[in-house]
C-alpha cells in the first residue's frame, strides 16, 4: 500500500564527500538514492530497511532504498539533497521565490520486485528530455 508522506531535504557529510569525488559513482548513488522513514511508516507500507521503494508525486517518480530512521517522526520522511530528491521537487515557489524543499508531498510504496534503484543516467535523460 502507498502512504502519503511529507519529505524534508537534508544534508549528509558522507554523501557530500561522495558527491565531491564523483556524481557518477556507486558510492554517491548508494548515499543519495534513499529515503529515511519512521519505523511505523515503514511497517505501514509493509516494507523493511534496504528494500526498494517507489516514491511518486505530481513532479516525478523515483525508486530508492528504504532506510529506517533512528528517530521517531511518523508522517515525515527525509531525503538527502541530490538529483534523486530533486526529481520530486516542484519548481513552483512561494511569493518570496522559494521552492518547497522542506515539505514535499509524495506517495511512498514498495517498488515492483523487478524495479531497480533509479540510475543517475536515467535522471539526466529525463532532465535533457
Amino acid at each position: 500500500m502507498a502512504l502519503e508522506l511529507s519529505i524534508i531535504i537534508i544534508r549528509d557529510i558522507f554523501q557530500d564527500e561522495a558527491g565531491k569525488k564523483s556524481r557518477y559513482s556507486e558510492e554517491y548513488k548508494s548515499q543519495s538514492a534513499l529515503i529515511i522513514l519512521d519505523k511505523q511508516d515503514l511497517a505501514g507500507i509493509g516494507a523493511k530497511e534496504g528494500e526498494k521503494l517507489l516514491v511518486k508525486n505530481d513532479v516525478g517518480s523515483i525508486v530508492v532504498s528504504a532506510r529506517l530512521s533512528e528517530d521517531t517522526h511518523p508522517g515525515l520522511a527525509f531525503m538527502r539533497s541530490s538529483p534523486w530528491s530533486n526529481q520530486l521537487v516542484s519548481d513552483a515557489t512561494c511569493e518570496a521565490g522559494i521552492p518547497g524543499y522542506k515539505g514535499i508531498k509524495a506517495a511512498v510504496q514498495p517498488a515492483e520486485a523487478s524495479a531497480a534503484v533509479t540510475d543517475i543516467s536515467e535522471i539526466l535523460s529525463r532532465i535533457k528530455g
Partner: protein
Amino acid sequence: MAICTGCSLLCQDIEADVSDGRLSKAKNLCRKGHGHFQASFSERTFPMIGGKQVDLNQAIARAAEILRSAKSPLLFGWSNSTLEAQRVGISLAEKLGATIDDTSTFCQDSLMESILSGNLPSSTLDDVRNYADTSIFWGADPSNSHPRHLSRFSYYPRGEKRQKSYEEERTCLVVDVRMSATAALCKENLYRVSPGGDAEFIEAIISVLEGKIPRVGDKKKMIELGTLLKKTEWGAIFPGPGLVYSLQGNMEILERLLARLNEITVFKVVPMVGHFNTRGFYELLREKTGHVNRVSFKGGEIAHGPEQSVMAAAKSCDAALIVGSDPLSSLPFGTAQALARLPLIAIDPHRSLTTDAAEVVIPSAISGLEAGGTAVRTDGVKIEFEPIIEAGIPADEQILKRIMEAI
C-alpha cells in the same frame, strides 16, 4: 599550510601532501574537506563543444559567440569562485545586460540581506570562540554541513573568556524538526519544531522573554529556555537552511527576536552559508547594485526580485553561463529541465550533470588548491590564499576575462 575551500569555514590549517599526483597525507581535514581535496584527482573536465573534445581557445571562442548572440543570458553559480572571478562575472553581466544569480539563491539570501543591511546584529566566528556561552543551531546541522564549526568556534574550543569551554561554560542548543547529528550532541537541549513552525516558535520565545505563557511547545521547557537565554552573557544564533526556508524570506520576526534578546543581553546572528565564497558574491553584488543576488542588468537598468532568480530566468533566458555549480543536480526538476534546453556554457573543474548537458565545457582550476585569490568566510572575514598545486589550468578569473575580451 593550505586552505580548504570545501565549505564556507575556509579552514587555513590544512597540511596536505599532494606532491605525487594524489592526496598521500592530510592533517586537519574534515571528511567533507578530504573529499574536496581528493576530488582534485578525479572526474576532471576537458574543453568540449557539443560533446567533442576541443582546445581551450575554441571552447572560449564558442562561449563568447553564444553569449554575444543571446538576447537574455543568465550568468549563474559564483559561490565557488574567488572574489576576483566574481568581480569579472558581475562586469560581464553588466556588459551583456544579463541576469545574474548565485548557487545559494533562496537558501540564505534573505538572511544575508538582513545581516549586511545591519538589521540583524552579527559578529565574527573568532568572537564566538572567545566569548560565546550559548550557541543555538537553528535549522542547521553543522556536523554534516560545516563539520569543524563546533571544534574551531562554537562549542569545544577554549576561547579568551571561555577557558572552561563546553565542560562548564558553553551550552549548545538545537532547534530543528528532527534529531540531527548536531542535535544528538545536546539531546536535552533539542527544541523540536513542526515543519514550518519556526515563526510560531520565535513568537513563543518572545512571549517567554516578556514573562508571558507561551502558546506553543512544552510550557515548562519553554520557560527553561527563556531563563537560559536571559542568563546568557554572549549568545550566538546560527541559522541554517531549515530556518530560512521555514520563514519564507520573512526576516522581520527574527529581527524582532534579536532586538528583544539584545535588550536583555548580547546576542548575535552568524550565517552558515554553504559554499566557500557565497558571502563574497553577496557582498560584491550588493556593493554594486544594492542587492545580494537575483539581479538583471537588462537595458542598462538594475532589476531585482523573484523574476530575476534562476527559477524564473531558466524559463525566460536564451543562454546560460554556469560557473562552478551543478544546477542540474541541485535545483528542482522543472528548473533543471528548463536549463538543459538552453545552450549552456559550463566553467567547472569537475564533471557533473550540468557539464554533461552543456554545449560548451571549459575546465577551470580548483580555487585554493590550484588557484589563489581572495574569499570571504561565512562570518565576513576576508581571507587570501595561494595555490598548493601547479596544475597549469586557468582560474575562473582568467577564463571569464578571456570570454569578456572575445565578446
